């Protein structure tokens, strides 16, 4: 009861602050939040909006940044990709925010890129993505393929002895690029082409009978088989339901997913899914004091003890703290100064390590492989020894292997090391 009282008082104080500071515009730093609150992606992005509000509230309790309070500005791009660009422009030009945290899908990020470049602002992008990009105004706090997909495949190959692979994905840019990288990687590892099957399904696919039975069929060749899933969003629930119903257990054919986290599992009975895997850089079940504190404050902020935390939330946690640190170091929130200060910034992550912002605008993260449990959580069964630096350009694609991103020394996002020019192949 007392904590509730405290929280209420805190919230009251915060709103008081906001209303007074709203009058004195110069005394606040505006932070833009660009996440869909309606439409298809609302399911994933609404949580991130709430997480950002919590982080900002906590930072304000600590006295804000550079002596100024932070003021969140929330807009709703409604899962509509062109609207993302309009809303980004509205945030930067209209609201004059100093930094934006936002986007989920790659297509929404691609849609806002030119806006951030033109208006010279900063975007923190918190979701795992397909890589092959590095932009001066964008900081990628989610995983690049070498921080998620490749280590997960390594785990299955080494620990589970998998020899046959089904790469199943939703038909859009992230799965297609990731699968291209994975296929090149598997072939380089000596997997025969006939032991790799790739299939794509439309967004929101709900009838998985044929594909699941195909997977069963593909798995009956006498070699250990696994499914690498880049199936996105809502389509996962019917996919896992069909797997459970057709009796494919994780011990027979494990499925490792890159887009399924605690949040996605909360709409699902996970009893038949125990043992299926996910690769992330953070799990809610990780047992560290930082994580316990984060979970406690999240539950208190949201007022529902059944709410879960997930990987993109941790990415925002890291990104926000990095921005705060860089802004304090630069003594200003001016975009150019913060962009220059960010590389090299170190902040603790929630899994007990220290993440650092690299010159290529990606960060170092540990890679964890977790197995789904019957309570909707993941148990970590494997993790990398140290933190893995994010690689913007995959080494396994011939066209991107010679490319290198370095905004500190080269001031270039796609420097070609063979021709020694900036500007790609």
């Amino acid at each position: 009861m007392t904590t509730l009282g405290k929280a209420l008082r805190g919230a009251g104080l915060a709103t008081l602050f906001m209303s007074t500071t709203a009058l004195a515009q110069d005394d606040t730093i505006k932070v833009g939040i660009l996440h869909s609150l309606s439409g298809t992606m609302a399911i994933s992005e609404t949580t991130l909006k709430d997480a950002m509000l919590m982080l900002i509230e906590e930072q304000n309790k600590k006295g804000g940044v550079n002596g100024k309070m932070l003021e969140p500005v929330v807009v709703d791009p409604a899962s509509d990709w062109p609207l993302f660009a309009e809303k980004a422009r509205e945030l930067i030009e209209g609201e004059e925010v100093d930094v934006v945290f936002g986007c989920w899908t790659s297509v929404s990020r691609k849609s806002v890129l030119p806006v951030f470049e033109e208006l010279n602002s900063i975007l923190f992008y918190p979701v795992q993505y397909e890589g092959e990009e590095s932009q001066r105004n964008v900081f990628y706090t989610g995983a690049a393929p070498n921080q998620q997909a490749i280590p997960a495949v390594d785990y299955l190959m080494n620990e589970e002895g998998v020899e046959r692979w089904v790469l199943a994905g939703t038909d859009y840019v992230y799965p297609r690029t990731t699968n291209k990288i994975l296929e090149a990687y598997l072939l380089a590892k000596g997997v025969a082409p006939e032991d790799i099957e790739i299939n794509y399904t439309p967004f929101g696919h709900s009838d998985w009978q044929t594909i699941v039975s195909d997977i069963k069929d593909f798995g009956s060749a006498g070699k250990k088989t696994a499914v690498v899933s880049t199936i996105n969003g809502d389509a996962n629930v019917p996919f896992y339901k069909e797997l459970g119903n057709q009796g494919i257990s994780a011990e027979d054919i494990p499925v490792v997913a890159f887009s399924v986290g605690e949040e996605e599992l909360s709409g699902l009975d996970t009893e038949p899914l125990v043992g299926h895997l996910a690769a992330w850089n953070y799990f809610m079940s990780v047992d560290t004091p930082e994580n316990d504190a984060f979970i406690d404050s999240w539950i208190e902020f949201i007022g529902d003890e059944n709410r879960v935390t997930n990987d993109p939330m941790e990415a925002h946690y890291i990104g926000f703290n990095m921005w705060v640190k860089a802004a304090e170091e630069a003594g200003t929130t001016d975009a150019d100064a913060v962009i220059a200060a960010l590389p090299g910034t170190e902040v603790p992550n929630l899994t007990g390590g220290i993440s650092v912002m690299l010159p290529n605008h990606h960060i170092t993260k540990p890679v964890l492989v977790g197995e789904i449990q019957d309570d909707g959580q993941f148990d970590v069964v494997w993790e990398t020894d140290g933190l893995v630096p994010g690689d913007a350009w995959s080494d396994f694609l011939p066209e991107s292997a010679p490319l290198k991103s370095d905004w500190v020394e080269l001031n270039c996002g796609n420097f070609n090391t063979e021709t020694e020019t900036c500007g790609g192949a």
Partner: protein
Amino acid sequence: MPLILRSLCAAVMLCAATLAQAQSFDDLVPALPEGGFGERAQVVAQIAATGDDRAEAVLAALLEGDLHTLKSDGTVVIVTEVGRDDVATDPVTGADRGIVERRGSSKIRVNNSLRRVLRTAIGTLTLTHPDPNRRLEAADAAFKSADPDQFEILKTVLDGEQDRAVRTALSEALAVSALAGDAADESFKLAGIAILQSRGDQEAMAILRPIAEGDDPVLAPAAADAVTAMEQSQRLWGLAQNVWFGLSLGSVLLLAAIGLAITFGVMGVINMAHGELVMLGAYTTFAVQEAIRGSMPWLFDWSLLIAAPLAFLVAGGVGVAIERGCVRYLYGRPLETLLATWGISLILQQTVRSIFGPNNREVGNPSWMSGAFEIGQMTITYNRLWILIFSLAVFFVLLFVLKRTAIGLQMRAVTQNRPMAADMGIRTGWVDAMTFGLGAGIAGLAGVALSQIDNVSPNLGQSYIVDSFMIVVFGGAGSIWGTLAAAFSLGIANKFMEPWTGAVLAKILVLIFIILFIQKRPRGLFAVRGRAVDS
């Protein structure tokens, strides 16, 4: 007391156990949390080898994730849920260790390979269990482990087994075990190949294929013949399976479209909010299940039967409200109707999002809708089977209402000739509202069924709206039978194309086919006279 028990146990062990047994059960259990998964697997094998009576309970608890270590003193305990508390018991002494606090214990972790080891270990312990179902499970575990060392045990157990089903499973397990090692002679292995061939499923094929590709002069050709024969029968079963998948997809399409067949097909209203009415039905199911979970958990298996009439009323009520409040002012203006109902669909979506949140809601499957059974080499999942039955039931009830009841007669009269029907004394406005309400209510029923196979989220309806219009237009607006024929033919066509073209292209091809078909027959499969046709 525990001390006496311990020493007693130790004494018994000492007498009974052979000298080869390095460690006792009592020493092995505390060793479980130590080391990585590899070490744990060795300890598990040793525990199974003790043959101790308590071993099965410990291993089962480990498999279920119920074996924890207490953070206070590091002892291994089995945690069971009693009411709202977690209670710990000592697996060695059986002593009660009291209630465990949140974060007071940590689970001993297992991964997939350890789970396989555990199932095999539990299998060897339960091969002679009194319950035949447990013996069957044990035989299946032995089949999956394909362990050559189990050959002798399986042979002995098989000789003593009486139950027919268990005997079959054991002989298959024995065949796998024989083929995996050198313990059996060639004729025994050939018999094993024959046994696996008669089993005929994909798991049997997975075992025979590597042998067929091997270089054994006798076994390889025999296994290759068996695989060829099995592949042939699987191809036939594959056709049957595709037809079943198609029927199942068709039944989902039928359910989604049948309500629209009334509002759009019969009444001619382009109802873009149809999908959201389906969603309302799904959320009604969720609400009913929540209420049942909270107060009457024993009713859970009946939740869908309770939800169905409620969903009909909720969606039907919303449908009547839409018709009375909006659509009736727009009759004869299809473009405005389209825009207005599109707006209503967005309002409904966002309302649900505000009330229930944007996340997926968990709707459980009742026990009679979970799992699958097999006919030959074909897997049929119960939820799909019940949805097929349900959709046909809804279809025939609707047909009965339209053809055999007074309200159905009035609906058809108003549809065919409104002024004449009004002259006959039919309250056309009331009939309009009821017709729209019926279509909406059926959409709600569809939601109950779809909640079993799809996400229950505010976006549920959007994914079905295009398909629904496609089915109704293809079947012929106004014809209920046309909707049935269209749903099943498109379902089956889609499923036959999918393995060749992939899911994305299959969907595109179906759309192209429909466009071409509509060019040739603009009124669909079964053309009917109605208001939609006149206008």
